[in-house]
């Protein structure tokens, strides 16, 4: 049976559920433990820092601050990482300047975590505070397009078309700041070897990023440091850039010549990147028959004072619907905080939220069903880039979603509770289908087991499983004959796991190397069996770990007994085919939701969520469905729950814990359904597969917002939407 397309259970599932999967914090070695003390002001400088009491505390081995940072880390040191935005990356302990509230200002290293944490509380810090403005709203004056990358080109004449439109809307939408909360907190474990070399276990979405950072900052040579990351307990973008615990644990290990581990607390998980707060201004116009005639999308987003973090937000408005007159603007404004960070479907989530709310508002103005309106303005080429799509089965998603959800009969559903208002909403979602260059290595042992290595990551997405499935099918062996290994800088290069491109990039490389190895087997077989000299490659097949020729079969293990040692291992690098830039690759989805709103109490519930996606070939429907469900649930959280509460007087996050930063919980999720439509794509990559890690969160918040309007007649135009927002309907 073929593995590709099979609902394969995760190959690493048993390890995970029995606790045998070793996450970074599980690495067992005699470690010193590091704990970071964070600033309690947002702006100013440290005038004095007294570590005497902390140093004297039992078990404390060392304390690092800006006062004793090794000189070599100050001059001509490169603190960037591969995904650093323009600006100057944060340099821990570099000087006494405070750039944000919660900034690491001292590192305590002790025998136990508890000792280090308590000793950090004995450090006395004196500050000189400076005035600052702690919120996006207060800093709007400083918003500038110069700090942001240029969006897709404007087209047509927006102003004129807007003026001539039969129906127009001008609306503002606001999203609050969201914090990453992967189940596994960020951690780094550094093993210090007797030869002075280090092995660094890091929570990261690509070990190459950590390595680049460590080389740049600590001047380490390629052979003196190795970075590993076997398991990552969720990352969603929070592991795209090395975070400060990597610096801390490595600094301490190198200085103390000892193993050091640093695991962040949940509260500390709120002391670095986040999905930025943004404000969108949407201006849309259409003609009487619902043809979208004019669209303008302007977004202002927050960034830090030291880096210009940017996302692709407004471009989505130029892409999703047919429109000839489009204006796109994007500005950034610095606030006194750490730099934002990519979070699941960065930019897309934000841009599409505003667009899909605005489209719904315009459809309503024109008196057209929101699904009909979207169909009417369907587009089958990328107007931003003026290219065809590699494939786009969004129409099929609309049709299937309409059917599964019973969209056309939605209003006839009976209301059962007199306190409840019932509403329905929908949205379109989309995400890029990208391929990056990736390299892999394959070797076969005498038992016929194949080991495939690549420096990629499995952030919970199912990389181990999916790659094993692809290899098993391509090689014609069972799944247990494949050992896929990842997360090690000793392995061939891979792009960072992000952008939903791992299946497409690493998967294509795995498929290609397996094909290459078929030729290897074929060559060895012919060499040792002269009677088959004339057999063409096309005449043979690979099945059940055997080469088949006519009615004859030859076990791989027997053939390869004749191979030289060199012949048992191969390497391969795969890059996107040259022709790929002639087409645009995107996955699409349609999401429909049902909400209830308590008329008097404002309580908003989501009894039903349906998503139908088109994402090319689905390699593993089970892990793909997991990704969709997870991202939809997060979308609900973003719509109704999550809000990083930054007290602008202090520039401090006041709900840095799971009790008060509300992520969606099981009880919030009722009927949730996802499925895929058939989508054939022979252009996007050799596998025809598009990633699905991010797709499901895009559009979801808008669908809920639109449904709340349907229920209450009130447009909330802000996230999260809380019960007090609908109280006075």
């Amino acid at each position, binding site marked *: 049976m073929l593995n590709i397309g099979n609902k394969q259970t995760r190959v690493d599932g048993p390890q995970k559920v029995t606790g045998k999967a070793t996450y970074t914090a599980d690495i067992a070695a005699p470690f010193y433990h590091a704990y970071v003390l964070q600033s309690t002001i947002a702006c100013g400088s440290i005038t004095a820092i007294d570590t005497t009491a902390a140093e004297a505390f039992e078990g404390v081995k060392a304390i690092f601050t800006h006062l004793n940072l090794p000189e070599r880390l100050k001059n001509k040191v490169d603190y960037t990482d591969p995904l650093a935005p323009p600006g100057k990356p944060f340099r821990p302990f570099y000087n006494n300047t405070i750039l944000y509230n919660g900034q690491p200002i001292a590192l305590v290293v002790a025998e136990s975590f508890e000792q280090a944490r*308590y000793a950090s509380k004995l450090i006395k810090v004196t500050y000189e505070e400076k005035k600052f403005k702690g919120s996006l709203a207060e800093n709007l004056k400083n918003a500038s397009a110069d700090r942001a990358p240029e969006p897709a080109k404007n087209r047509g004449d927006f102003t004129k078309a807007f003026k001539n439109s039969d129906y127009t809307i001008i609306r503002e939408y606001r999203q609050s700041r969201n914090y990453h909360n992967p189940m596994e907190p960020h951690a780094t474990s550094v093993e210090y070897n007797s030869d002075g070399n280090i092995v660094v276990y890091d929570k990261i979405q690509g070990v190459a990023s950590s390595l680049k950072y460590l080389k740049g900052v600590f001047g380490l040579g390629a052979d003196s440091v190795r970075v590993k990351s076997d398991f990552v307990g969720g990352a969603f973008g929070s592991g795209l850039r090395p975070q400060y615990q990597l610096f801390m644990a490595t600094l301490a290990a190198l200085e103390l010549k000892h193993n050091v581990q640093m695991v962040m607390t949940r509260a500390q998980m709120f002391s670095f990147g986040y999905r930025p707060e943004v404000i969108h201004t949407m201006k849309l116009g259409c003609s009487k028959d619902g043809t979208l005639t004019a669209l303008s999308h302007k977004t202002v987003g927050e960034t830090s004072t030291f880096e210009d973090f940017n996302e692709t937000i407004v471009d989505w408005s130029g892409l999703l619907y047919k429109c000839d007159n489009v204006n796109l603007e994007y500005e950034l404004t610095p606030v006194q905080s750490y730099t934002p960070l990519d979070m699941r479907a960065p930019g897309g989530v934000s841009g599409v939220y505003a667009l899909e709310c605005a489209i719904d508002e315009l459809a309503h103005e024109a008196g057209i069903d929101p699904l009909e309106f979207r169909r009417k303005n369907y587009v089958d080429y990328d107007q931003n880039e003026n290219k065809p799509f590699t494939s786009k089965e969004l129409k099929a998603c609309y049709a299937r979603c309409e059917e599964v959800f019973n969209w056309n009969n939605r209003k006839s559903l009976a209301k059962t509770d007199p306190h409840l208002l019932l509403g329905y909403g929908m949205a379109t979602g989309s995400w890029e289908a990208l391929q990056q260059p990736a390299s892999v290595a394959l070797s076969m042992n005498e038992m016929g087991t194949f080991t495939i290595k690549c420096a990629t990551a499995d952030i919970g997405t199912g990389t181990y499983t999916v790659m094993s499935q692809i290899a098993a099918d391509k090689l014609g062996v069972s799944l247990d004959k494949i050992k896929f290994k990842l997360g090690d800088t000793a392995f061939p290069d891979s792009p960072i796991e992000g952008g939903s491109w791992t299946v497409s990039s690493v998967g294509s490389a795995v498929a290609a190397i397996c094909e290459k190895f078929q030729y290897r087997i074929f060559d060895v077989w012919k060499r040792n069996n002269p009677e088959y000299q004339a057999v063409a490659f096309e005449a043979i097949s690979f099945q059940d770990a055997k080469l088949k020729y006519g009615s004859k079969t030859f076990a791989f293990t027997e053939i390869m007994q004749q191979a030289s040692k060199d012949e048992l291992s191969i390497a391969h690098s795969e890059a996107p085919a040259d022709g790929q830039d002639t087409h645009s690759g995107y996955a699409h989805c349609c999401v429909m939701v049902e909400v209830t709103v308590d008329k008097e109490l404002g309580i908003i*519930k989501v009894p039903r969520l349906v998503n139908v996606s088109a994402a090319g070939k689905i390699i593993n429907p089970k892990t793909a469905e997991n990704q969709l469900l997870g991202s939809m649930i997060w979308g609900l959280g973003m719509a109704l729950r999550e809000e990083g509460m930054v007290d602008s007087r202090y520039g401090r996050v006041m709900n840095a814990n799971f009790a008060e930063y509300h992520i969606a919980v*099981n009880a919030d999720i009722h009927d949730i359904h996802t499925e895929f439509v058939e989508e054939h794509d022979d252009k996007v990559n050799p596998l025809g597969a598009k990633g699905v890690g991010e797709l499901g969160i895009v559009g979801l918040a808008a669908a809920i917002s639109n449904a709340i309007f349907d229920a209450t007649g009130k447009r909330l135009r802000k996230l999260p939407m809380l019960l007090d927002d609908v109280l006075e309907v």
Partner: protein
Amino acid sequence: MKPFQYTRLSTQDLASGTTLRDSTILAGGTNLIDLMKYGVEKPDRLADIGKLPYAQIEESDEGLLLGALVTNADTAYHSAVKKTYPLLHKAILSAASAQLRNRATNGGNLLQRTRCYYFYDTAMPCNKREPGSGCAAINGFNRIHAILGTSASCIATHPSDMCVALAALEAEVHVLRKGATLVIPFDQLHRLPGDHPEKDHNLEPGDLITHIQLPTEGFSDHFEYLKIRDRESYAFALISVAACLKVSEGKIEDIRVALGGVAHKPWKLKKVEKEMIGKVASTDNFQFFAERLIQGAQSFGTNDFKILLVKRAIVRALNSALNPS
């Protein structure tokens, strides 16, 4: 957390009475240990009461006696609680998560501390944590804060759900003080912040809660616990209402309403309840009652919505109590 001495108390230790006065009592630890990790609580000595003989629920003519060490989960699922005090059952199960309820004790639930964001963050001014340092919540985030009985020094709420039900039921708290048992009406256990927000309650250092006495009347025919929160489970109440009614021929014979999430203690006014006796059990009268109960409410910005919401919640809860579905 700060290093501390740990003692596990035995019944004999109790007799001497000395250990407790300079110790902090540790029960389930779900609140205390959390606060110690944050550096909010910094006890030198912990007295673990886990092995003391207060882990039973006993039925008697006077009602039901809940041991202070019975877990919230065991209390909620006890057959007598389910049958006679379904309000308490519902209130407890609306709180926290299954794991927490399995660990949390009844005594600890009563004395759990506020969830005010600023109280939890030692970098912030807070009169409750650091008397005299100021109150950051009054002009800051106060979504989960009080609208009744506040003072210029503190606007925190008591976060318990269980206590709201106990207040409505007019339970009593048994406290061991210097070897003698003191019986405290529930209403007098917690206090309003006034000028001393550092004091959550009226107990003295060394006092040990041993039992909670539920009176015989459990209002099992007409009750409701309505909890309004920011997600469907695992969130503290923005507002909660424990409502009990006794009705005869459409008229109110008895009414008990306690509010959570609106004050430094469960909010209940006997005087206003008395005014309702003999009136028709109707939405109009419930509305009138709600207005009276929250008279003088004052909000602080992000909790402005509570004044409207609490009135609606009271009416909803009383109507549900009146007409159980």
